[in-house]
């Protein structure tokens, strides 16, 4: 087509401006975060440390947990609950979402049941699951799975329902059977919505696991928070919260990485 000549090796001013903006945001974030931590630490002499603790105190507690193995033991328990629950809930959500998304009649039949369960705060199922599944891993996995399920299911269902009908018609005329319609059009068409659901469900998975641990547990990061609070150890509570924060970020980037790889086809 048309030939483009390179006249001069100059940087597009728009790109330069964007680069400058990125730098401002990057250092701005670091500055604000460090500033807040420093202010917290400095105010340590004026506020009740028993309630608010200080960043140094929290760091010291984290260090203790790391060296005596408390952190790793409990982190592993919570991570296992999250990963298992997320995987189960996501698989069920995608499966049922695609199924009901492509069979509208079935969707209408199941709709009231699903919406009734969806409406109940999942935490309220906690005691029931403890009665059913005991106090160890299983009830936390189930509650996590339930929370993840609805996020993934609803977005998958919407995605599958909104797939362009004309595309389905076209492949039908090319001789596609029902299964091929699903694999060639419905699933790839719903993929962006599925990916979005999978991302939005991550914080839900954490909530599920931690809430489960808060109800009853003898291990896990939620247990650490609960136990520290019962000892009036606010540094321990904050240390536990910090661990959860890191866990959420790690999980988020793992799913971002995974969805980024498969979602790229749509760009």
């Amino acid at each position: 087509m048309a030939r483009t000549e390179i006249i001069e090796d100059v940087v597009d001013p728009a790109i330069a401006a964007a680069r400058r903006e990125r730098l401002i945001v990057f250092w701005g974030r670091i500055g604000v975060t460090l500033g807040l931590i420093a202010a917290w630490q400095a105010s340590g002499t004026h506020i009740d440390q028993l309630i608010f603790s200080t960043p140094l105190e929290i760091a010291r507690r984290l260090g203790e947990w790391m060296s005596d193995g408390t952190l790793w033991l409990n982190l592993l328990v919570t991570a296992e609950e999250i990963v298992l629950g997320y995987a189960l809930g996501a698989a069920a959500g995608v499966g049922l979402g695609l199924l009901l998304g492509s069979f509208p009649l079935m969707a209408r039949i199941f709709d009231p049941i699903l919406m009734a369960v969806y409406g109940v705060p999942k935490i309220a199922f906690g005691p029931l699951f403890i009665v059913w599944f005991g106090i160890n891993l299983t009830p936390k996995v189930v509650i996590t799975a339930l929370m993840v399920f609805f996020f993934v299911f609803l977005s998958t269902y919407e995605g599958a329902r909104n797939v362009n009908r004309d595309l389905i018609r076209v492949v039908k005329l090319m001789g596609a059977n029902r299964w091929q319609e699903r694999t060639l059009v419905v699933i790839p068409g719903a993929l962006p919505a599925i990916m979005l659901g999978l991302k939005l469900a991550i914080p839900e998975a954490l909530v599920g696991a931690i809430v489960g641990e808060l109800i009853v547990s003898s291990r896990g990061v939620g247990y650490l928070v609960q136990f520290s609070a019962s000892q009036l150890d606010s540094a321990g509570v904050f240390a536990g919260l910090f661990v959860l924060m890191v866990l959420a970020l790690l999980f988020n980037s793992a799913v971002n990485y995974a969805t980024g790889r498969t979602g790229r086809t749509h760009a």
Partner: protein
Amino acid sequence: MAAGASQDAAPAIRLDHVSKWFFKAGARIAAIDDVNVDVPAGAFVTLIGPSGCGKSTLFNCIAGFIAPERGAVIYRGKPVAGPNVGIGYMTQKDTLLPWRSVLANVMLPLNLQRLSKAEARERASAAIARVGLNGFAGHMPAELSGGMQKRTALARMLAFNPDTLLMDEPFGNVDVQLKLQLQRELLALWEGERKTVVFVTHDLEEAIALSDRVIVLSRRPGRVKADIRVDLPRPRDPVQIRFERTFQDIHKHLWSLCDIATDAEDEHG
């Protein structure tokens, strides 16, 4: 074309007293009323008519997406029941799969015909070359211009190689120059292979330039108002043909039949 005399006599598509109606707010609204049309194998037939005259409804009946309330659609001697697998369908709307490359889109019908990967790739590449998209096989549809997307759809239809093409305003959304070019390409392809084509358009000039016959439908309910033979020599050039006397006569005649001035007011009514 190679078929014997007895098959030549039977039309590729026969619309036999086709009527179709819809219900809107409890009232029965006729979309198509008693339409009888025979499309011979290898013919290029165009339907024109005001918006809402049931052209698309008629199309969907031939494609087998909807069934007429009365009458029958006979395709190659058999009544159409369910999606009419094996006909090519191209609409104004873009029906490429956005997550597949140009090559993968063109290969789709061949994959569904269970062709080997190598053969599918070869035939798809040939079709892509034929519509002048060499070098764009790896592009995604979103990376192409509107005209190139239409060409990709055309290439997909070529690779599919159906006996019958249904084209519902396929060049509706493109600028005049590109439209002429696509028409030229379509005519060249059709003159080579003589497939049966049923074409729908709002553009009277397009209808005359391409077709053997132009069928004028009335306002709703759609009825056949006129069936006009286009006696222009082939091969045709869609640009040059406009200056022929016969073309202009037919054009004038169609205008008088269509009364576009009043119809245009209730676009998409």
